[in-house]
């Protein structure tokens, strides 16, 4: 082995040029398709990730449901008091918002770790790299399937009007996962190279939780509608929250979400084409 030195910037640029050839883009797309074909593998791995966290505990994965219920109850009583809200109205709003936020935050945070945590496998297994992204999505979805019951319990208790708008929920969930995919792909690659990214993202997600109307309602902030609409997370939360609370989907939320999905996917695909082949070297 001989060693040499070379400037970091220039090597990243060389890699970019190498990665942006037509065949690399084709390979990246193939990688995502082939990853889907290996779903038996990543579904098993994703389930295992969830189980691993709660292994040998009495309640098992139902701790997910329980801790969410405790959180919603505590926050609901506290902020209901602080904001002087009617609990009949506020509790379901908070429950659904918190559950959706948990889904989005996990997609973003765990997405950063998608390749880093799979280090050992990436270097030994010749599977498409996208399986590690699917795996994160799947384990997040499993956790969500446990959490959503907290909302339904609250909804039944306070008699929320669950109506035909619920049919929009699966569509919204699919769109959220679609966005989760590009986020995990993009942040996963970035985090594999720069290990500060997951930490930066983690603290940003925390701040976003307070900026995004999850514990507070948009109506509580009159006259600042512009800031609200500039926050992409508001729209992502709202497309799912509205139908669960029995409201019709709003175009004002769906249009930005569709735009985010298209722009995000193009960005992530561009990035993944360029740097996918370097991931095995980085982890």
């Amino acid at each position: 082995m001989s060693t040499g030195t070379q400037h970091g910037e220039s090597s990243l640029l060389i890699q970019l040029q190498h990665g942006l050839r037509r065949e690399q883009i084709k390979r990246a797309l193939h990688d995502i398709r082939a990853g889907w074909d290996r779903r038996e593998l990543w579904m098993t791995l994703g389930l295992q990730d969830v189980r691993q966290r709660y292994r040998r505990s009495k309640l098992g994965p139902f701790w997910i449901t329980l801790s969410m219920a405790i959180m919603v109850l505590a926050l609901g009583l506290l902020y209901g008091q602080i904001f002087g809200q009617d609990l009949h109205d506020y509790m379901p709003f908070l429950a659904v918002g918190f559950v959706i936020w948990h889904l989005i935050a996990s997609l973003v945070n765990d997405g950063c770790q998608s390749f880093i945590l799979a280090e050992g496998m990436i270097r030994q297994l010749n599977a498409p790299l996208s399986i590690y992204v699917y795996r994160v999505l799947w384990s997040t979805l499993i956790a969500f399937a446990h959490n959503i019951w907290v909302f339904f319990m609250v909804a039944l208790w306070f008699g929320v009007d669950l109506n035909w708008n619920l049919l929009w929920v699966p569509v919204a969930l699919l769109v959220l996962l679609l966005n989760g995919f590009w986020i995990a792909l993009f942040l996963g690659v970035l985090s594999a190279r720069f290990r500060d990214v997951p930490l930066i993202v983690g603290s940003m997600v925390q701040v976003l939780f307070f900026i995004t109307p999850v514990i507070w309602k948009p109506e509580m902030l009159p006259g600042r509608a512009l800031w609200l609409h500039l926050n992409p997370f508001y729209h992502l939360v709202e497309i799912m929250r509205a139908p669960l609370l029995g409201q019709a989907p709003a175009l004002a939320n769906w249009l930005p979400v569709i735009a985010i999905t298209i722009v995000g996917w193009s960005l992530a695909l561009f990035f993944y084409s360029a740097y996918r082949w370097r991931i095995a070297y980085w982890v």
Partner: protein
Amino acid sequence: MASIKLENVSVSFPVYSASTRSLKNRLIQSATGGQIRADAISQRISVVQALQDINVSLEDGDRLGLIGHNGAGKTTLLRVLGGIYEPNSGRVEVQGTTVPLFDIALGMNQESTGYENIILRGLFLGLPRKKIRAMMDEIAEFTELGDFLNLPIRTYSAGMQMRLAFAVSTSVVPDILLIDEGIGAGDAAFLNKARERLERFTEQVSIIVLSSHSEDLLRNMCSKSLLMEHGRVVFAGPTDEALEHYRAMRGW
């Protein structure tokens, strides 16, 4: 019909120290650009040239040994053949299903039962679940683990885990098999049985690339070998001659 063709393949690794990996240092570095030129050496990323201009061509029935001391590039070459590393330059053409068997226990989960691990390991090898189920009895029987297969494998001894991993890993026959340092398999009593199975298994594979330090293993299995040093092929030819060169190189 399996084949492998490498043309002028080179692989280099960036070696990131803790400081170059952090985004903060990258940002500070670019913001303060020219000022710290004097310190430029420490700002550079060292690059390890792991493979240089490798040419390999293999066809059905070939058994290739990789010889060389630690760090000569054997494992890197195996990873390129397995499609794990894409080379910086050169062409790689591999036809046929490839299974890299670097760690036969890869993916096994300590908390899952023996049966669950058979499925898990099978999924890692690229088998569909249905097919693994169909082979389950045969694999279970071969391991001789009996009722233990219903227990989490963390209760197993190292040898028992090895048996399980070995049994599953040798149950699917790929076109191309990449092996690093041979395949181990538990205690002496099991060894004969394992050897038989391994022989039957390796006979069916059309191309094998084996990296090893064991001269016996290389002689038995591989007709030709590559002797590698510093990421280059220094000799290619019959295994016996390659081993002789290797010994001469090390001054024996």
